[in-house]
């Protein structure tokens, strides 16, 4: 379809203050043509404010924005005309599904025939055939969000902005809608900017994830990159679960690093990043051993609790120095007779850890 319309957006030192509160601090970022970028962060991190600045609903206090290289800092929202999908759907309650989708086309002054054809096409594209004459109040939440998507995409906007569009939906529906959005992005090739606080949603959908905290852009990279090579402790802890071990006596040589954790010597090889004072290891890379293993890294721990999650069981442990650890393992692989307070070993390969 219309692949040429996707735009590239540049943000350069964007700051936004509300009174004395700095919602955004010096955010610089380029959103590539046709990219699916997710803005991820806890609530109050500035991700939604950044989206509102991109849309033109909020003016940045400092910095500037570009659209395909041309300045758009002062351009009003209606001139940018980026598609927008909100959490609360924001459909026009007094219009039918078809009239909602036709609205932006009428704004563009398209011909009646063109509008009718395009509306029918969009209704089909989002799987709402037969619902065209209904009012939004007659539709389910998922259907309403489909209408919102169809309306925002009908006029081929250069950029589609989505503000936590699925957080009001239940889990199954959310999964369906995520697939739907991914498919629409693939088919249309428009630049998508998607705000969420749900890290698994961000990892599943995006070509890149931009992680915000307290108004600061912490890291922007592909999902695999931010998960496996987090830039800092916040990113490491925000994305999935992670165990963080404070280190001492860190020494680095050509073949890797050595460090000490609670008197236990550890090997750190592979690609652990620049040496730091902590080692971060994802729970999925850690394994439970009943006795001290021969090779690799291993630390002694006390089992605190087991949480049965069906296929997986989550284990909560702590080291003699009271550093909390958690790991999850297949329930079927659980050693028999494992009960809280058992003394166990937690082991992981040398190359599965990152310095923070």
């Amino acid at each position: 379809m219309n692949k040429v319309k996707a735009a590239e957006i540049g943000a350069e030192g964007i700051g936004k203050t509300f009174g004395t509160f700095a919602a955004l601090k010096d955010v610089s970022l380029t959103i590539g043509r046709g990219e699916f970028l997710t803005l991820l962060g806890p609530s109050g991190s500035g991700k939604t404010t950044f989206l509102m600045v991109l849309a033109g609903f909020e003016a940045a206090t400092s910095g500037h924005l570009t659209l395909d290289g041309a300045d758009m800092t002062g351009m009003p929202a209606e001139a940018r005309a980026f598609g927008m999908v909100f959490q609360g759907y924001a459909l026009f309650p007094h219009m039918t599904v078809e009239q909602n989708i036709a609205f932006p086309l009428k704004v563009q002054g398209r011909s009646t025939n063109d509008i009718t054809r395009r509306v029918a096409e969009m209704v089909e594209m989002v799987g709402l055939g037969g619902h065209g004459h209904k009012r939004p109040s007659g539709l389910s939440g998922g259907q309403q969000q489909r209408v919102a998507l169809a309306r925002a995409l009908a006029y081929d906007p250069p950029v589609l902005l989505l503000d936590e569009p699925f957080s009001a939906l239940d889990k199954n529906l959310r999964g369906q809608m995520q697939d739907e959005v991914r498919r629409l992005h693939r088919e249309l090739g428009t630049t998508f900017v998607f705000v969420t606080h749900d890290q698994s949603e961000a990892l599943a959908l995006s070509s890149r994830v931009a992680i915000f905290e307290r108004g600061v852009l912490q890291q922007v990279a592909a999902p695999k990159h931010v998960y496996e090579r987090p830039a800092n402790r916040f990113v490491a802890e925000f994305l999935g679960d992670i165990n963080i071990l404070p280190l001492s006596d860190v020494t680095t040589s050509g073949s890797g690093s050595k460090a000490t954790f609670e008197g236990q010597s550890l090997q750190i090889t592979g690609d652990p990043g620049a040496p730091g004072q902590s080692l971060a290891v994802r729970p999925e890379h850690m394994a439970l051993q009943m006795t001290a293993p021969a090779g690799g890294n291993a630390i002694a721990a006390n089992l605190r609790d087991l949480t049965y999650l069906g296929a997986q069981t989550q284990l909560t442990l702590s080291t003699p120095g009271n550093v909390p650890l958690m790991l999850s393992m297949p329930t079927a692989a659980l050693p028999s007779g494992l009960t809280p307070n058992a003394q166990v070993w937690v082991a992981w390969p040398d190359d599965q850890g990152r310095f923070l």
Partner: protein
Amino acid sequence: MPRISRPALLLVPLLGFMVLTYLVPFLGIVQWSVTLPEPGLDQYRAALSDPLVLSVFLRTFRICAVVTAVSVASADMITVLWVRGSPAQRLAVELCILIPFWISVLTRAFGWLALLSTKGILNTWSQSLGLLSEPLTMVRNEFGVIVGMAHFLIPFAAFPLASAMRTVDERILLAARGMGASRSRVFFQVFVPMTAAGILGAGLVVFVFALGFFVTPAILGGGRSVMAAELIYLRVFQSPNWGLAAAISVVMMVGVGGLLALLMRQARPAVPK
């Protein structure tokens, strides 16, 4: 006998009060209209054929329609500021809406007289500034009546409008703007239809209220723009014909009741839930 729930009993005092002070006297007026000076429907025939009475009805309807349009449109504009403005704007609008409630209708009518009459402040100032050579006639006519009535009724229109506007999700308006719609398109094609229930409610309140206006038209109309309420007063106290006054009252009541019923019926399906 069906059981009456206890909370419903709380309505009894109000209901009793309405029956005693409103329904019973109104039935008395209906009785006058068909018995004074003699039994029959003569007074209705007179009310509906007398050119003077008909012209008063027509004028009343016209003035009320204009006042309703002016009041609701003005109230809509200030209410947008009241609901969506900055905190300072909200406070300013709130004061503008509330302060008039503390000033009697009589004081306000004389206030407009002082402003608008041929020797009033507006005319004398404009003349001394050389903006006008002859004074403009702004009172003792329909213009004065409309200004005075709209001034009184704008705050009453603001309340139903504000409650309708407060239910509009800001994001719907943002979504429309985000799709490239100009501010005037967002206002007329999205905001106005979404607040239609409030606009209709405000219009009804103002129109019905306006129909019964007595003091303001009497003062600012100066006896030339007589409206229905003033005519009824004249027929009761000055050139007594109680039967005719009663018949005019009943015709007004039935007319207003019919109009309300029609509007409610038309509006019901369009009011979004």
